[in-house]
């Protein structure tokens, strides 16, 4: 029922905007983490379309995020001063869209090789693209080279992050649940059978990459205007792996599970801050233990089971 989902979207956006109005009352540190959670939900849900629903294996999601982040930041840095304060949100929206669209073009460039490659070979090519994107930003003077971009305006608010997270969830969920979207799942389950049924696997794979990259780009834009500093190191393949872990822990192709995993994996390192020196050691041990005990994903119940 598309009607029900539309209401969910409107409600979520309204709630995000309303909460954003009173967000000044919250502790800044907690607010920052909550925004991080929203951004990571966008990243995980968009990667879930590629890795989960469509069954590809992309290790380059941080690259798309970098493209979106750098372009959006550049747009607000260049035009931010010449735009009146009242129009700032529109500039921000435009910046995010530009970042997302350019990331989508990058997604197209990565999606095309996926026509021929699968499994580990696809993983390595996406990883390669991610690294190429990072090196390009690292060497380009226009984007601040190795020092990165600084002095980015603080435009990302609770409302922006969570409203866009809601949009991402809505778009991905409705696409996958539509008649057209069943094609993604068909490609995931069996490519040959899918193409025998008249589904064009190539088109679906590329579509998944383009949509996934678009939202990763949006998330990158939000990230840039949240952290206020962009460094090329922040988008290396460790970042891509973090997002992949969210998708796998949530259960491949399980939207709700992936959202929960994104929330947990963002908050967990913060909770462990008290034992700062053991923080990442515990985090990595938890990943291993979770995989040994619940490999189908933390929140996968029922018969779809081991994906």
């Amino acid at each position, binding site marked *: 029922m598309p009607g029900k989902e539309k209401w969910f979207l409107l409600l979520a956006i309204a709630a995000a905007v309303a909460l954003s109005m009173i967000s000044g009352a919250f502790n800044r540190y907690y607010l920052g983490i909550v925004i991080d959670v929203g951004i990571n939900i966008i990243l995980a849900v968009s990667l879930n379309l590629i890795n989960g629903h469509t069954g590809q294996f992309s290790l380059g999601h941080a690259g798309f995020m970098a493209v979106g982040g750098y372009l959006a930041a550049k747009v607000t840095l260049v035009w931010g001063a010449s735009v009146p304060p009242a129009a700032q949100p529109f500039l921000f929206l435009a910046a995010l869209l530009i970042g997302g669209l350019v990331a989508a073009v990058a997604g197209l460039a990565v999606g095309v090789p996926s026509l021929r490659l699968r499994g580990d070979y696809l993983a390595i090519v996406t990883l390669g693209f991610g690294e190429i994107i990072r*090196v390009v930003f690292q060497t380009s003077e226009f984007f601040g080279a190795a020092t990165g971009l600084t002095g980015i305006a603080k435009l990302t608010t609770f409302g922006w992050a969570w409203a866009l997270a809601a949009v991402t969830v809505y778009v991905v969920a409705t696409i996958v649940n539509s008649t057209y979207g069943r094609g993604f799942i068909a490609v995931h389950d069996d490519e040959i059978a899918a193409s025998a049924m008249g589904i064009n696997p190539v088109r679906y794979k590329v579509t998944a990459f383009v949509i996934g990259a678009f939202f990763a780009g949006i998330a990158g834009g939000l990230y840039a205007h949240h952290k206020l500093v962009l460094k090329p190191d922040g988008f290396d393949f460790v970042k891509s792996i973090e997002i992949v872990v969210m998708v796998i822990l949530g259960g491949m192709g399980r939207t709700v599970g992936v959202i929960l995993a994104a929330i947990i994996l963002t908050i967990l390192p913060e909770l462990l801050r008290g034992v700062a020196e053991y923080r990442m050691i515990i985090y990595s041990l938890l990943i291993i233990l979770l995989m*040994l005990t619940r490999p189908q994903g933390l929140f996968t119940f029922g018969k779809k089971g081991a994906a």
Partner: protein
Amino acid sequence: MDWFLQQLINGLALGAIYALIALGYTMVYGVLRFINFAHSDVLMLGAFAAFYITPKVAPSLGSQSLMTALVVIVFSAVICAIIGMTIEFLAYRPLRKRPRLTVLITAIGVSLFIEFAGQHEKIFGAATKPFPKLLPKTDFNWGELHFSSNDLVVLVLTALLLAAMWFIVQRTKIGMAMRAVSYNEQAAALMGVNVNAVISFTFALGSALAAIAGIFYAMRAPGIEPLMGVQPGLRAFIAAVLGGIGNLPGAALGGIVLGLLETFFGGMPGLSNYRDAIAFAILILILLFRPAGLLGKQQTEKV
């Protein structure tokens, strides 16, 4: 011409190290069909093992002697072989029947665990440590050409190790068992092959190679630190895929090709910053035309 030869030497020395690491990736892939992300950290552990062993043996065997180097290399290799087998036993064996992706994420977890545990000050600490000089180093100058004795030792040792690997896999009983497990695990088990033992052996072998590669890599690097394995590990992973993952000569070839590409582009004026990007771009191009790697078997899709 001199420039060309110089880059050739540097590229071969670097490529030989990549080849050694790539062999470990490829052998594990051959038997278990997954990429062992923790391999690059075993390499780091190998370098650290050498770092701690060298001061212990140097006084009795003489510092910077061939004997010391050999003892250090053998001990580090054995330590890493044990570590590799332990990782397989604790983290991968319980997941043997699970989807490969699960094992892959576990491997990433193991890799992160080793890296972060290593960075803890009670273990190695995050700071870069100077690697002890293992071998007497002489620099040869041949006209405009410079190369060090270390490069030569690395090249010769790598060639010997590659030959030894080929011998083990193709001419020994355990090698035959490895190939059998790689071909069909169930059938191999039915024929009396102890699959668990073969997989343990493969991990031991791969980790020992990683340890040796780690020591060679550390000899060329400015120092060692817990994250030193990440970059060469990534390169070797690419090399293994480039050559056709699961294929031993392919891994060696991939390593050499990647080492050469990296040094040639790194040596060109104006391109050095783009070195990594160009290596990756060429890799992608090669994979586009040979999707199963340079020496990999092209599989036709069957219904």
